[in-house]
């Protein structure tokens, strides 16, 4: 993230934290230690943007629209760039901006404007409104049935809605008309969801081979790292994360991957330091929670709670910008002693969509609330595609033990550890304890 992006983020987070009453900790851009500080307000250097950067792209597009307000293609590009900037900076205030510029594009050019609907679909998906994403994707498809990105947004929405067969068809169509990094990567994901890990790796390798920029190659290398990680291949994951980091130092997730690897290798202090760096640059709730979990396992519960509080504050900020975060909150709350809230959020999300990830979150929230009989139905649904997920398998094992099904529970916890011994910062020690309580060593 550039300085400008980080400053915007710091300001936004400051507002968010203020809005929820404050948690006494503000991260300043580049301040990895996370010491209390005022947000950088008027840093003149923040105005300078690197050529070729996302900020430069946005500035150029804004300038373009000032000069030629009728350029609806530029408006569509700017809308997508805003959605992307929200992701890169973890700052959801770009979403309303994206919405405004895409709406303006449609006012200027109401007909034949597939690009605007692709942008609206990407925006809706970013806000976790997958029904809206599908609706806009279908509009785009009627206008441009040969656009690869059109089938990308449609398939993405279908995956999140749990309609996997239809998603597979959309991605097949996408790759048949637009083979390339975008479509290969999606095929990789569908194969992974169906438990075809080797096929997922092949497709992601193809994605890496057609990627021509260092940034795209880095992205694909990182995904290969994730695939290796999820399969328990620690060394392979570390190699790919390091490769991704070397190709594009600005891609923060590969640093988070290295932090994860440090934890898996038992270097907890290093892992915490690395996660602090990551979170200072890119406070994705996932990383904030991971940092909190790491602190929790070291016994520093106060520091951990601070991170969980930050994650919840971020969730409030996302919600204020139109992002639905019920699934994420359900997982956070189920893992951290708020079973009632977790269950409410998960049931709301299940009312919206039936993906395997929502089924898993609902099952885990039911387990946390003590409803294991209901939980096991949903956890089995979560595993119905045959996904090789250590986390899902761990959840299943814990639910089975909760139901008194000792042998099944022990078997599934062992399976989880066989798939990936480092599947979760909190789950690994919890599984170990559960196996010990069940009289099984592991």
């Amino acid at each position, binding site marked *: 993230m550039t300085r400008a992006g980080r400053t915007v983020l710091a300001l936004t987070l400051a507002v968010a934290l203020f809005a929820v009453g404050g948690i006494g900790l503000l991260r300043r851009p580049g301040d990895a230690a996370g010491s209390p500080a005022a947000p950088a307000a008027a840093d003149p250097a923040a105005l300078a943007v690197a050529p070729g950067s996302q900020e430069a792209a946005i500035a150029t597009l804004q300038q373009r629209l000032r000069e030629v307000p009728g350029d609806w293609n530029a408006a569509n590009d700017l809308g997508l760039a805003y959605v992307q900037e929200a992701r890169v900076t973890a700052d959801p205030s770009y979403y309303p901006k994206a919405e405004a510029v895409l709406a303006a594009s449609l006012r200027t050019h109401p007909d034949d404007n597939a690009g605007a609907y692709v942008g609206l679909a990407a925006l809706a998906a970013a806000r976790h409104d997958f029904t809206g994403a599908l609706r806009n994707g279908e509009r785009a498809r009627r206008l441009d049935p040969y656009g690869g990105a059109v089938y990308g947004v449609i398939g993405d929405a279908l995956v999140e809605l749990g309609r996997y067969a239809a998603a597979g068809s959309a991605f097949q169509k996408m790759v048949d008309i637009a083979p390339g990094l975008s479509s290969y990567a999606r095929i990789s994901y569908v194969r992974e969801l169906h438990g075809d890990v080797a096929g997922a790796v092949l497709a992601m390798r193809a994605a890496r081979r057609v990627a021509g920029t*260092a940034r795209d190659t880095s*992205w694909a290398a990182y995904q290969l790292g994730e695939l290796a990680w999820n399969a328990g291949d620690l060394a392979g994951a570390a190699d790919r994360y390091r490769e991704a980091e070397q190709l594009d130092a600005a891609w923060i997730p590969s640093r988070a991957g290295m932090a994860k690897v440090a934890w898996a290798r038992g270097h907890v202090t290093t892992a915490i330091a690395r996660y602090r760096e990551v979170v200072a640059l890119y406070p994705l709730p996932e990383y904030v929670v991971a940092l909190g979990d790491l602190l929790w396992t070291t016994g520093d519960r106060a520091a951990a709670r601070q991170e969980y509080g930050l994650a919840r504050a971020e969730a409030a900020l996302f919600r204020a910008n139109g992002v639905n975060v019920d699934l994420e909150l359900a997982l956070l709350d189920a893992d951290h002693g708020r079973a009632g809230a977790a269950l409410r959020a998960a049931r709301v999300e299940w009312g919206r969509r039936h993906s395997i990830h929502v089924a898993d979150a609902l099952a885990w929230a039911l387990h946390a609330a003590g409803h294991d009989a209901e939980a096991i139905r949903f956890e089995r649904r979560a595993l119905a595609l045959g996904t090789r997920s250590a*986390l899902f398998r761990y959840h299943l094992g814990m639910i089975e033990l909760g139901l008194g099904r000792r042998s099944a529970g022990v078997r599934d916890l062992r399976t989880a550890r066989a798939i990936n011994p480092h599947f979760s910062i909190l789950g690994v020690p919890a599984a170990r304890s559960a196996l010990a309580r069940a009289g099984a060593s592991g």
Partner: protein
Amino acid sequence: MSNFRKALIAGTAAVALGASIFVGLAPIASRASSHREAPLTAADPQIDNTDLYAFRSPDQPNSISFVSSWIPFEEPAGGPNFYLFAEHTNYDVNIDNNGDARPDIIYRWTFTTHYRSGATFLYATGPVTSLNDPNLNIYQTYDLTRIRNGNSVVLINNAKVAPSNVGAGSMPNYNAHLFNAAVSTTGAGVRSWVGQSDDAFFLDLRVFDLLYGGNFSEAGDDTLTGFNVNTMVLSVPRGQLRGPNDSVIGIWNTASRPSMRVQHTDGTQTFSGNDVQVSRLGMPLVNEVVVPVGLKDYFNASKPKDDAQFLPAVNDPELPHLLNAVYPGAFPTVLDSNPNQAGIQRSDLVTVFLRGLPGLNRPVGGSASEMLRLNMDTPLCGTGGAPACSRLGVLAGDVQGFPNGRRLSDDTIDIALRVAMGVLLPNHDPAAETLGDGVDANESPFLSTFPFVAYPHSGSDPSPH
């Protein structure tokens, strides 16, 4: 193709908007376990074909040269500032030499990327003084294959691509040691060069503001000044290209990539599926002047033999309507080659874009299809008794130029604007004869010998634009 032209139309906005910034248009408030962030590339620059040129080689008039450029708006400086061709992708020059709108000869480049060191992803680890210099850590090689009558022959194997000119610090004598050194030849007189070059296209992009209700009163700047492209140049003796009927060949670029199966029911995996055409480019400006916005992706996947479907779009293109809307009264004549027939007829555009000019580059028995058409026998301009060279090509009587093939120096924008506004029709408005974007030549000199394209701008140039 469409992406570049969309980029043109979006003006310099596209400069910073490579495909890569669109990586991961996906939710952020999610855990990685529950939501894969996958890129939704709005642009795919490696298969974005900027231009195709075809002309008699000025240094070997008995051969024809083909120039294909890809990856628009390469910034010479700023990191990362090196640009690679895609692997797993066929880059093709297709040639129809009998007028049936099907490729009779295909020249195909395929690329492999090499990393000398697994420990670093730096482009250069020290000064690079030759194509084989170990300091060039990342380099590409290519195979050039000719496919004729279904038979594939590898003409050039494992040749080096001239690297991106990242700056004098890393590449102290780029032009002589790297650019010029990348020429490969075969015993049969085929020459191939692949590498980075200056973008030979010159125009003022603000012309395209017309499409958005702007005007081009501010024209006159070459908006592509200082940008590079990745280019392959091929030179082939005419005798290897000539068809059975005449000396007219039709030329178009395509890029194709393998599809793959989302899932395999039999449990096996294959890396690749059928090749899918993802880019098509023949004549310049077809996508802007002719193909409607909603059909651009479709056009990129289409084949010349099916081009009759685009006839309505050619007969009633968008540009004259736009010019009439922006400059009411400037073009009072309704452009129609045959007012007695219902609907707008533009037989002049059909001739230029789909058939070729009679007596010059229209093939015997040719069918209507969009490609660059070149009469390989037209003498070089300014030689012998041939007409003087002109940037306006055929419009100025220089019949060796566009739209009889396309030379690097042809002023495509001015020609296309005038043609679109009816300059080839007898009843056209006089204003059509003076239309132009105010940019008449490229900013960098073209080379007089193979590979003809201009040297790329250096990464150490502090202000390339």
